[in-house]
């Protein structure tokens, strides 16, 4: 299976006041297509920083980063925008839906960026909103939706452009356990059925339990002392494989 993400000795540091924070200290990571990976670790371990780099919304300080086989660590902004638009979907902890847009419009937005025709746009939005069970609530604004519903809209928004990779940063942070389970089940099903690669940063046990692969981080490094959990067998059992 080909790699969708490959990080080689990736370092990231930034200044916080007068202090230099070394958020990543040389991370090596490979994530193959169709994987469902959870990056786990305590707060400040570098999970979000790693996700920002992999999601191409932040620049690395040193090392090499490959996305879908291409070196992307030092690409110009224009090309990064293009990759993000076509190949990467984001799910955020705060959902980050556009407050003035309805659920339908939020999901439609990535397609408009990609200049998809109106008819196809309608069909796809309907399909994905139905997929996340929110077609009936398509006219609702984010403020009129529950946290779980907002996160499902965010998932549909990330999913609709059929990206190669979906990055979810603490997707359960603002959800109760019931909603967390539902959202994770949805992501897991999408991963299994559509083969979309998921990288999720979380320290929520429910999320970690749903993952096929768990990468532990500590102090800006992948913690080799903690063996990568492999829930693949459990998932395979659930999937009947």
């Amino acid at each position: 299976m080909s790699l969708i993400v490959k990080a080689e000795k990736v370092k990231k540091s930034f200044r916080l006041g007068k202090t230099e924070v070394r958020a990543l200290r040389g991370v090596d990571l490979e994530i193959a297509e169709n994987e469902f990976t959870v990056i786990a670790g305590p707060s400040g371990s570098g999970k979000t920083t790693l996700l920002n780099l992999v999601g191409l919304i932040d620049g690395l300080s040193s090392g090499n980063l490959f996305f879908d086989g291409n070196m992307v660590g030092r690409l110009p902004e224009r090309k990064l925008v293009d990759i993000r638009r076509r190949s990467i979907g984001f799910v955020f902890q705060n959902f980050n839906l556009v407050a003035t847009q309805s659920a339908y419009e939020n999901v439609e937005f990535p397609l408009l960026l990609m200049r998809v025709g109106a008819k196809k746009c309608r069909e796809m939005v309907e399909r994905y909103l139905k997929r996340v069970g929110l077609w009936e609530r398509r006219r609702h604004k984010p403020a009129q939706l529950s946290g779980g519903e907002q996160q499902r809209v965010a998932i549909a928004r990330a999913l609709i452009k059929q990206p190669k990779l979906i990055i979810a940063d603490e997707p359960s942070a603002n959800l109760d356990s019931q909603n967390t389970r539902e959202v994770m089940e949805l992501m897991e099903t999408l991963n299994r059925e559509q083969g979309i690669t998921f990288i999720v940063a979380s320290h929520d046990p429910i999320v970690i339990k749903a993952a096929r692969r768990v990468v532990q981080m500590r102090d800006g490094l992948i913690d080799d002392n903690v063996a990568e959990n492999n829930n693949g067998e459990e998932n395979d059992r659930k999937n009947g494989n």
Partner: protein
Amino acid sequence: MIVKMAIKNIWRNKRRTLITLAVITIGVSMLCLAMAFVEFIKVGYGERVIHGQTGHFQVLRSDLLQKEEDKILSFGIEEWRKLAEKIRQDRRVSAVTPRINFFGLCSSGEKSTAVMVQAVLPSGEIEMGGRHINSDSLKKLASEPDGVMLGKLLAKSLQVEEGEEVTLLTTTADGAMNGYDFKVSGTISTGYEEADKRFARVLLPAAQALLASQKVERLVVTLHDTRALNEALVYWKENLPEGFALQSWKEVYPDFAKTMNFFNGMIGFVLPVLMLIVWFSTMNTILMSLMERSPELATLRAMGTSKFRMFRMLIAEGAWIGILGVSIGIVIEIGLAFLINNANLMMPPPPGATEGYRLGLLNVPGIFTFVGPVTLCVVILSTLIPARRIFRLNIVRALRNG
């Protein structure tokens, strides 16, 4: 998509947008009102001067403009009827009437004072004045061959009343002194205190008898439409007989240009002040909106929206606020102008004048085609500065702040 999002975004914080809209609306309507007032003064006052005093242009002997007359009417027009007839042939011309202006001494027997006398043909003056003047005093003057209309304050100073006699003394065209008794037909008000103290109006034949000359000083020409003035001036400059010149009404009455300069100066002061208020108000709105929405803007950037597209969206938001504000401002101004024009409000007399004037507003398309685009440009330019921040937006930091 950009337009749709921009329209929705401007109503994100309704109160703030409404305040900005109110500032733009008030700015636009006040500026349009001020300009409509100046336009009313320009047209209303201008037409009143043209039809009541100066005509659109005056024809006179060139020498009168270049030299000092030794004796009254030495540079007068002899064959004035022929010339007047020739000018009247022009289809642009509505009236041609002769005049003589001269100085003299007016005596009631007990008291004498220097006066400026205007000799006219009432029929010609009425034709020239049309609906712009009150012709009662001219009709009264026409009914009395030896009548004189005195300025209100002149009559008061001479202590004479209607029906009493006064004597006008002046030098004739030959240089001799001559006197003529006139019957006071009534008093007139020119609207200006100084003029009312010195002004007298008599019939042209009586003045010609007094001056012992059949000449007139000038021909006053009015046109059907002031817009044809430049064309008529060009034509008559080329087609007047040799030795004749013409003066446009603005040359005859230079105070008009001074008045307009004063009003234009006021507009020139008010315009930047109002635009500055619009500038800061819009900039504040966009800046606040940008700061509040930075996590959302960062999300859109993360999803692959280019910086330039987001910049255009912010500019579109400013533009929509501008378009709305300008449109509402213009509608309000039109409504206010209608109310003011129908309220018959009177303005107090200007300095030196004895009569006030009706407050009126004249909306012409030029006002809106100037104020609208200028305000819109100011609004869009004031959006540019905060909108530029989108180019420096750090996605990670903005998402973290959310």
